[in-house]
Each structure stands twice: as structure tokens, then as C-alpha cells.
């Protein structure tokens, strides 16, 4: 049996663990840069505010106190996700995190009843020990587990844990109701093509001949059919394969056309990309840079330049990648444009261990310890403790995150407060504020 543990409204649930005032209220979490809504509580969904609603459209509701909108607090979500994975590792033989809020658990050799019991234990523990509500879907394959999880979430009488066997009448009934684009791995485009052949439900897909699908569509779809029938054929390592390219890009808080500022933003993205590169133990052969102007501003001149800089030899050294960034910006920069987004992509990656050294090229491991040390320090002391070059603190390209909650689990100065009696937290805050004001006044007075 394979299980999928999926947190309900993960970002909102993380926020609620540390802020009880959000319980039972409509809460939304905004994307990077406070652009649009990317996570909604059940109450927010009930207000029919769709996913991806631009934040500025909701400012009225927020000001009237009808909804809560928060900036995304990825440090908090990342830490809670790591805790969730560890909790599952303690309870199950094998765990594979699939995304920040979805984890597969592998329960080979367990009976169905044992799986069901374990699913209930896991759900209870996550709720109790971490404060997060999760649903568990159990089934013989990844695709069916995903479906079982969907059912556990939608249908309250399962109480958050749903076990589906491949040939049970329940599974059959569910598949007959399920539109084909709700099946894992079937996108909207593919669903449209399938509809032309008369395949509209998951059940119809399951009844297709995989060999024919393989010819007409793809191997992946043929595998999906087998998965729906209960034959597991998505290997776990397929989920874990190192990425072939690494991309870091962000929209700016405010558009800018100043070359030095664009350079600073690109440098920061390059440093982050290089860190990810070393984490998966790869080397990059080329660096791709790009800038975008705001395409919604029809009144402004538009330009989306990019530059590709091949490296002399594959490398994971931040300094070499930064040199490529400088070269690339020289190539693509044009004055007179207001850019809103910058990105750095590392591509054509090779495995650092398997890479054969060329006799003619300088070794890519000239300073292996330097990069390892930088990564280790940044991991321990917080991202950006050691940087290459200075960045302005209040640069316009920096992220907007005006409504970010505290980093309760990763920052000593931002811990959650607990009062010893009702009103104690508010009183302590007022006292601190008073002290701050008094200090400011003292400093403002000229010395006698």
C-alpha cells in the first residue's frame, strides 16, 4: 500500500498553529511579493474568492476586517513541512516528500486493516503534535492514493482517512464520477484531447488499452491507466531525480531600470541558484539570464531580453556563475526600460561525481571547501549571512511582504508569545511600546 498524506490548506493551517485568532475566520496567504492569493482557508473558499485573485482587489474586504490576508512566510512553512516529514519517518517504514505539503508513505507488507489504523494514527498525531490538519489517502498505487486523498478531503464521513483497493465497488463508483482531468498527471490539454476520443471519466480511461494509448498519446498516460487498475508503475526514484535545470526568479517590489539594481537582483538569484545546484551535487554548463518589463503596462515600452552564457567548464562555484551574470547583463541590458522581473536559470546540468575532468580545462574543484563553508554557514546562521558583494537594504527590487507573520520556528526574536493571564500579551506589548517611545524621546532630547 502507498499512502498520500496531504495537509489541508497547508499555508493557512501553519499560520493558525501560531495565531489562534485566525481560527474559524476567512484567511488567505498571498504569493511572493503580495501579488495574488495562493492559499485559502475553507471560510475564504466559502466566500467564493477564487485562487489567484489579485491582492489589490481584496484590500476593501481586508480593511473592513472581513478577511485576513497574510504575506507568505516560507521559512515557517518550510520548517513545518520538515517537521511533518520527520513525524512520518518516525511512524512509517519509508517516506518520500513530494511537495511542501504532500508526502508519500510506503507501507509494504501491511494488511489493509493495519494501513487504515496507521493512517488514523498518523492523522491524529500530526494534528496533535504539530497542530496541522491532514488527510490520508491509501491505495495500491500513487495515482489511486492521490484519488483516495481527494475523497478523504471531500467526504467528511471518511474522517480524513480513505483506503481504496483497486477493484472494490467504491473505487469503481468513484472513478465513474471523476472527470478525467482530476486524475493525477492528466492536464487540461490532455483531457481535451481525450474528450475527442470520448474519454471523459477516470473509469473510461481505466478501461482503455494501455498499448494503444502509448502509441497515440504517451508512455506516461499508458502508465496512468495501469496505475488506475492497481499496478504500481511510477517508481519512487522518478520522483526524486535531480532537476535538469535550476531556476530562481522573482518579480520586483517596484519596477526599476537602473543597471546596478538589476545587477544586484540577478546576483542574488544567481547565489541562490548556485546553492541549490550544490545541494543536489550537480555542475552547470551554462547560465541563462532574463529580464521582463511589465506586459500589463501598455503605455510603457516593452522588452524581455535574455542572455545565455556558456561556462568554460562545468562548475558549481558561485564566483564563476556571478562572472557569467556580469557578462550576460552587459550583453542584454538596454537603458530606458522599466523591468519588473529578473531571473537566473542554470541549465545543462551534470552530476558532480560522474563528471570526467578534462586535461585541458582547469579543475572545477579548485576551491571545494570555500563553497561548502559558505553553504554551511548560511544554513546555520540564516540565508544570506555570507553574500558575494553588498546589496542595498531597501532596494526597490526587494520583496514586498508587508503582512508576513513572525518566523515562529526559525528566528529567536520572533517567537510566539504566551500570556500568564488574559490580557497579559497585550499589556506586555503596550509596555514594550512605551519603553521604545521613552527611549526615542530620550535620544531626541539634546544633551545638557
Amino acid at each position: 500500500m502507498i499512502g498520500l498524506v496531504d495537509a489541508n490548506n497547508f499555508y493557512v493551517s501553519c499560520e493558525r498553529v501560531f495565531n489562534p485568532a485566525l481560527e474559524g475566520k476567512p484567511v488567505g496567504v498571498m504569493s511572493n511579493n503580495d501579488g495574488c492569493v495562493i492559499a485559502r482557508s475553507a471560510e475564504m473558499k466559502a466566500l467564493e474568492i477564487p485562487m489567484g485573485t489579485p491582492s489589490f482587489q481584496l484590500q476593501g474586504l481586508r480593511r473592513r476586517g472581513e478577511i485576513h490576508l497574510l504575506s507568505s512566510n516560507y521559512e515557517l512553512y518550510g520548517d513545518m513541512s520538515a517537521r511533518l516529514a520527520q513525524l512520518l519517518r518516525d511512524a512509517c517504514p519509508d517516506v518520500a516528500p513530494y511537495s511542501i505539503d504532500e508526502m508519500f508513505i510506503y507501507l509494504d507488507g501491511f494488511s489493509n486493516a493495519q494501513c487504515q489504523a496507521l493512517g488514523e494514527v498518523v492523522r491524529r498525531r500530526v494534528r496533535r503534535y504539530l497542530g496541522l490538519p491532514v488527510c490520508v489517502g491509501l491505495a495500491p498505487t500513487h495515482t489511486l492514493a492521490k484519488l483516495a486523498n481527494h475523497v478523504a478531503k471531500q467526504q467528511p464521513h471518511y474522517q480524513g482517512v480513505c483506503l481504496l483497493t483497486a477493484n472494490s465497488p467504491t473505487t469503481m463508483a468513484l472513478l465513474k464520477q471523476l472527470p478525467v482531468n482530476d486524475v493525477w498527471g492528466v492536464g487540461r490539454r490532455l483531457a481535451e484531447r481525450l474528450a475527442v476520443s470520448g474519454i471523459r471519466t477516470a473509469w473510461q480511461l481505466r478501461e482503455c488499452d494501455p498499448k494503444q494509448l502509448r502509441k497515440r498519446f504517451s508512455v506516461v498516460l499508458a502508465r496512468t491507466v495501469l496505475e488506475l487498475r492497481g499496478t504500481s508503475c511510477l517508481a519512487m526514484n522518478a520522483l526524486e531525480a535531480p532537476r535538469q535545470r535550476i531556476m530562481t526568479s522573482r518579480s520586483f517590489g517596484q519596477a526599476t531600470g537602473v543597471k546596478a539594481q538589476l545587477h544586484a537582483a540577478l546576483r542574488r538569484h544567481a547565489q541562490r541558484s548556485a546553492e541549490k545546484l550544490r545541494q543536489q551535487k550537480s555542475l552547470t554548463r551554462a547560465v541563462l539570464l532574463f529580464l521582463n518589463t511589465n506586459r500589463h503596462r501598455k503605455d510603457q515600452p516593452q522588452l524581455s531580453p535574455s542572455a545565455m552564457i556558456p561556462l568554460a567548464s562545468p562548475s558549481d562555484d558561485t564566483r564563476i556563475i556571478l562572472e557569467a551574470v556580469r557578462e550576460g547583463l552587459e550583453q542584454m541590458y538596454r537603458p530606458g526600460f522599466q523591468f519588473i522581473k529578473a531571473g537566473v536559470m542554470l541549465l545543462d546540468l551534470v552530476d558532480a561525481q560522474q563528471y570526467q575532468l578534462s586535461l585541458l580545462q582547469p579543475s572545477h574543484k579548485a576551491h571545494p571547501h570555500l563553497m561548502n563553508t559558505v553553504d554551511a554557514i548560511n544554513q546555520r546562521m540564516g540565508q544570506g549571512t555570507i553574500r558575494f558583494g553588498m546589496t542595498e537594504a531597501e532596494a526597490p527590487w526587494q520583496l514586498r511582504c508587508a503582512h508576513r507573520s513572525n518566523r515562529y520556528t526559525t528566528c529567536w526574536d520572533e517567537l510566539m508569545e504566551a500570556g500568564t493571564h488574559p490580557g497579559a500579551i497585550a499589556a506586555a506589548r503596550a509596555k514594550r511600546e512605551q519603553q521604545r517611545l521613552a527611549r526615542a524621546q530620550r535620544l531626541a532630547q539634546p544633551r545638557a
Partner: protein
Amino acid sequence: MMPSQPASSETATFTTSALTTSTFPTTMVATALPLTSRPLPFPTLYGRAGFSGFPSPAQDYEPRTLDLNERLIKHPNHTFYLTAAGDSMEGWGIFEGDLLVVDRSIPPRLGHILVAMFEEEVLIKRYALYQGTPHLCSAHPHYPPLPLAETNCQLWGVVRAVVHEYLP
């Protein structure tokens, strides 16, 4: 670690050993706690008698430096840190600004000090019987016990330890 009472013998031993190792000044105590659920560091220092080749007599004893994490945190994955605000738990050794080590995986029992969500507020209270029924109690005459029956109260975690720092 109750600052209002004289240090127990255990606390005293701990403090001396921390001082004698001298690589860890006492003010480092709080910053040595892990920020995330990473495995706890247990440095092993095997005794060696220099380069002479003569085996150290301490070799068979495998000394291990004391680690405050190991002592205060039993379940790192389910432990969270909070800051205390208010004066009504001073009788139990919890002062404003103290660091609370809260374990969410401990089942609450009478006598435990709990963090609870009580009517949309985060409270630290002692879980105890008052007039025969469970209440959230303070250690201060100004704040009467809060009855648990018919209130919106949810357990958040059990306070395992309190860290009171004397120096900034």
C-alpha cells in the same frame, strides 16, 4: 531552572561543567538550542595523550560533552519555543520574557503547566483541580482559576522547561 529558588544540586553540577569546558560561555546556552528539527549535536571527544603513541587511560570511557538540548528537549520534532508575557506565573518560576520549551507530544496531566488556546488567547497556566473540577490556575491571588467546563479551550502543548537568562 526556577530562578526564585536556590539552585538544586543538579543545576549546580550542570553550571560548573559548562564553565569548566569554557568553550561554551553560559550565555550561549539559549543560542545552542536547535532552530529547526535537525538532529541534536552530540560531539564526541575521545581522550588522546598527544602524539607520543602512548594510549590515553581515558580511551575506554568515551567521554561525551553534556548537551543542554538533550536534557531539555525530549522530542525535538514536536518541541516549540515560546516567550512568556505577564507576571501571574512567577510563583511557578515563569517570569516575563522567559523562554518556554513546549513539547506538544506530551499528554497533559493534572499538575502540568500548559500552553492553551483559551478564548482566542494563548495562555500559560497550571492544569489543576480547584473545588474538585479541572481549572487553569495561576500562581497569583489577583487572577482566579479559570474553569475548563463550558469554555472554548484547546490544549496547545505542555511546558517541559523554562529558561530564565540572567545576562543579555
